[in-house]
């Protein structure tokens, strides 16, 4: 040992006694070593223990030899249970990140985004950084894990905000489009050139463009209701065939305008679901409109209905086309609000990119699912809607068939029924059908005829088409309700419009029921049976 001043030696002893030192220099084999008292590495320890990033030490085989409290919290595990575990078991997909034998892991710093897998199965997005450190004679891998959950969430909000901006821009554009033709047509109406064909032309332009505006605004209202969870369904047994008919009718103008061919495949039997016919038809027509929009002119579309193979309780409606298709990268996002795969594609045909959001919402509200598939760009698209069938479907149709049509026979009394419809085919087939079932049926093809017949015939049940050439079904109902002899007549509005306000108008006019076209035989037979139960 070197010479030391006695004063220094005394000072050292004093400092030790008074606890002013916490490390010593010791010479071992001609080499100085520092021996720290317990508290010497307190700061480092506290920092690593307390820091709000995960810190993990791994041995060369990937075994966790240490982890801090935050890491344990991140993967939702007890710290004690993590030590001795292999890191790989906590990673969703490591992508070779933990290949500890690899050269670049041994020499440099690896830094990568990964997904850790918490013990409850949730995934935690992280940024992981790892480097090797030497510790006496061994080596350990120091892993620092930053939780990116919040950052990802913020990123997502940013993306959604950007989408909303794009959506607003698109919306402004879409709302503007019809304005120019309307303004032009209005200007034509004001000029002295009042030839009938010019007037006709101007009226048609305004009519079409206002229709377009109305559709946009309806979609917007729907999507805002859907996103706020404010859509209520009026559920009733509906036939898939009826839904499909309405959907096709709604989509047909666009399909025809684009000279596309639509093939429809339906199963031989009638399928019933418990649903809101308007919303379901809207969902399917949205899919059809999309198919038409994203398929070149002259392309082929198809819609096929079948009972889900292997699952007799489900019906599957598949809408497919041979159009532009969907890139695999955007496929998972197509049902998201404001998502439109390639704006330039959809723009040509207009649209707000909210159609599929509505489809998914409506279908899921019915307990169903919708999926989209495409082999890739240019390979067409295929959308599959699955809906749970009414459990009683088979029984109901079978029972109806066994009774030989609608509510005839020993358990149903014959009724006087007045059918009011300007469509001869509809009126005649319905009256024939009801007549075969033993009911006494009259048909009126106009509002005036309906009023006359009603007074003379005094029907117990009236089925009234709302849209008649000479007067509306509502007016008929109002007039007839004021006649005392007809105050107990059951009046049913039959219409293609099923919105809340349509139903309210029917009720206010004096109708007892508001049914969506085409008329459901089931509903009719139920109505007649109920009539018996009430009056018997």
């Amino acid at each position: 040992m070197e010479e030391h001043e006695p004063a220094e030696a005394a000072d050292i002893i004093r400092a030790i006694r008074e606890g002013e030192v916490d490390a010593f220099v010791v010479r071992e084999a001609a080499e100085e070593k520092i021996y720290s008292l317990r508290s010497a590495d307190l700061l480092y320890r506290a920092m690593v223990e307390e820091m709000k990033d995960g810190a993990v030490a791994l041995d060369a085989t990937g075994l966790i030899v240490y982890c801090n409290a935050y890491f344990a919290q991140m993967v939702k595990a007890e710290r004690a249970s993590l030590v001795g575990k292999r890191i790989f078991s906590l990673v969703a997909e490591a992508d070779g990140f933990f290949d500890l034998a690899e050269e670049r892991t041994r020499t440099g710093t690896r830094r990568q985004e990964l997904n850790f897998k918490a013990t409850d199965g949730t995934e935690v997005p992280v940024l992981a950084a790892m480097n090797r450190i030497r510790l006496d004679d061994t080596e350990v891998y120091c892993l620092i894990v930053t939780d990116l959950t919040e950052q990802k969430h913020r990123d997502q909000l940013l993306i959604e905000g950007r989408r909303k901006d794009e959506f607003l821009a698109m919306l402004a554009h879409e709302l503007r489009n019809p304005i120019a033709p309307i303004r032009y047509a209005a200007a034509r109406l004001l000029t002295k050139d009042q030839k009938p064909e010019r007037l006709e032309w101007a009226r048609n332009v305004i009519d079409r463009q206002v229709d377009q505006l109305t559709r946009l605004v309806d979609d917007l209202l729907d999507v805002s209701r859907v996103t706020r969870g404010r859509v209520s369904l009026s559920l009733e047994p509906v036939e898939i065939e009826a839904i499909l008919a309405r959907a096709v009718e709604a989509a047909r103008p666009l399909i025809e305008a684009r000279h596309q061919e639509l093939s429809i495949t339906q199963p031989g039997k009638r399928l019933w679901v418990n649903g809101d016919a308007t919303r379901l038809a809207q969902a399917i027509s949205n899919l059809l409109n999309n198919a038409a929009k994203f398929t070149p002119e002259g392309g082929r579309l198809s819609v096929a209905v079948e009972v889900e193979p292997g699952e007799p309780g489900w019906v599957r409606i598949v809408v497919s086309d041979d159009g532009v298709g969907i890139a695999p990268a955007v496929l998972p996002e197509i049902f998201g609000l404001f998502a439109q795969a390639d704006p330039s594609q959809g723009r040509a045909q207009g649209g707000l990119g909210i159609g599929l959001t509505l489809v998914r919402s409506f279908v899921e509200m019915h307990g169903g699912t919708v999926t989209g598939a495409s082999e890739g760009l240019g390979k067409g698209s295929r959308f599959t809607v699955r809906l749970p069938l009414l459990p009683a479907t088979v029984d109901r149709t079978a029972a109806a068939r066994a009774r030989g049509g609608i509510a005839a026979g020993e358990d149903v009394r014959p009724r006087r029924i007045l059918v009011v419809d300007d469509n001869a085919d509809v009126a005649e087939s319905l009256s024939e059908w009801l007549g075969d079932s033993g009911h006494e049926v009259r048909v009126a093809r106009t509002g005036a005829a309906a009023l006359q017949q009603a007074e003379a015939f005094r029907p117990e049940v009236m089925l009234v088409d709302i849209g008649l050439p000479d007067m509306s079904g509502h007016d008929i109902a109002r007039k007839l309700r004021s006649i005392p002899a007809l105050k107990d007549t059951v009046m049913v509005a039959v219409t293609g419009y099923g919105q809340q306000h349509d139903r309210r108008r029917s009720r206010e006019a004096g109708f007892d029921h508001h049914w969506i076209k085409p008329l459901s035989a089931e509903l009719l037979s139920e109505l007649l049976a109920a009539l018996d139960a009430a009056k018997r």
Partner: protein
Amino acid sequence: MSAAAKKSAAQKPADEDIWNLRLYVAGQSAKCIAAVRNLNAFCEKHLAGRYRIEVIDLLENPKLARDDQILAIPTLVRKVPEPLRKVVGDLSSTERMLVGFDLRPASP
């Protein structure tokens, strides 16, 4: 006003006027952190503008302990002005430092 103050206001202090202090530490141990803090406070009060501190972490390079024959950590060494002086410990006593550096005679 004192001559020294005039001089420091007029020009930079000459090299021999600047105290050269070396503090030996072992990482960020509690006593070492205390010593750094106490030393800075002491210098600001008693040696304002004429000191230079060098902190030597012996954990990083233990061999440096040899230069000044350090045994216990922390230890403060005054290299300049001569003679070389050492104060062992966390420098929590200003009194002891003043005495150790001959800035004030030891109390009887």
